[in-house]
């Protein structure tokens, strides 16, 4: 994969204690390792195996991905808006794949 990109949707501002929705999407083929070429050769597995979301350094959600996660993994989840600060999203996987995205949130 050449171009790596992730799309994150987090509200820019939120009220303290509000439950906010976070959606994440990262470009990745999620090659299952089960597929074959037309010559019958197995195509090596190449997937994201782990997604971690931290909020001001504290882990709020973690996900194990498997080959059954569709290409360009999408995950939508929620969190309680605690403090202003930074949400960090990290995907790691096969072949040293690692992508980190950060977004700011203002909590009032």
């Amino acid at each position, binding site marked *: 994969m050449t171009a790596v990109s992730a799309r994150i949707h987090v509200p820019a501002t939120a009220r303290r204690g509000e*439950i906010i929705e976070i959606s994440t999407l990262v470009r990745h083929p999620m090659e299952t390792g089960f597929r074959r070429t037309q010559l019958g050769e197995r195509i090596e597995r190449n997937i994201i195996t782990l997604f971690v979301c931290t909020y001001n350094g504290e882990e709020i959600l*973690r996900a194990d991905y498997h*080959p059954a996660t*569709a290409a360009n993994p999408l995950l939508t*989840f929620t969190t309680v808006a605690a403090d202003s600060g930074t949400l960090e999203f990290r995907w790691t996987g096969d072949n040293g794949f690692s992508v980190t995205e950060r977004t700011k949130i203002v909590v009032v």
Partner: protein
Amino acid sequence: MKPRRREFLVAAGCLAGGIGLATVAGRAHANPAALGTALQKVTGGASIRSGKVKLDIPPLVENGNSVGLSVSVESPMTAADHVKAIHVLAEKNPLPNVISIYLGPRSGRARITTRVRLADSQQVMAVAELSDGSFWSDTRDVVVTLAACTESVI
């Protein structure tokens, strides 16, 4: 998972005032051993009750390459009482584990949405692990319609 699938077929027959059908579940065979192992890993052998969990997934999909699903669990999501993990499993996939999500009171709500791959018509199961150590689940049948279309050529 076999009894579950039967249950589904029998239900179909009852509603019809007629006849149970054997065509819905598709031709690929479930892999109960692999599913059992995967469930064992998730629960450590604890029993799973049905309830509390709601799995939303289309009953019919065309090809299974990218199937949207959401799982929500009834829970106050407090420090004392919350959902620790949500696991999605698919009995007829080459690997039954689909996704595992670990969350906690800071999540506010136990609800996730993702997109998965389904190899064949099958049952998809969402299992939630609660902070009190109990396990709850919801199971849905998904028909991959392309599986029916290609049935006769193989």
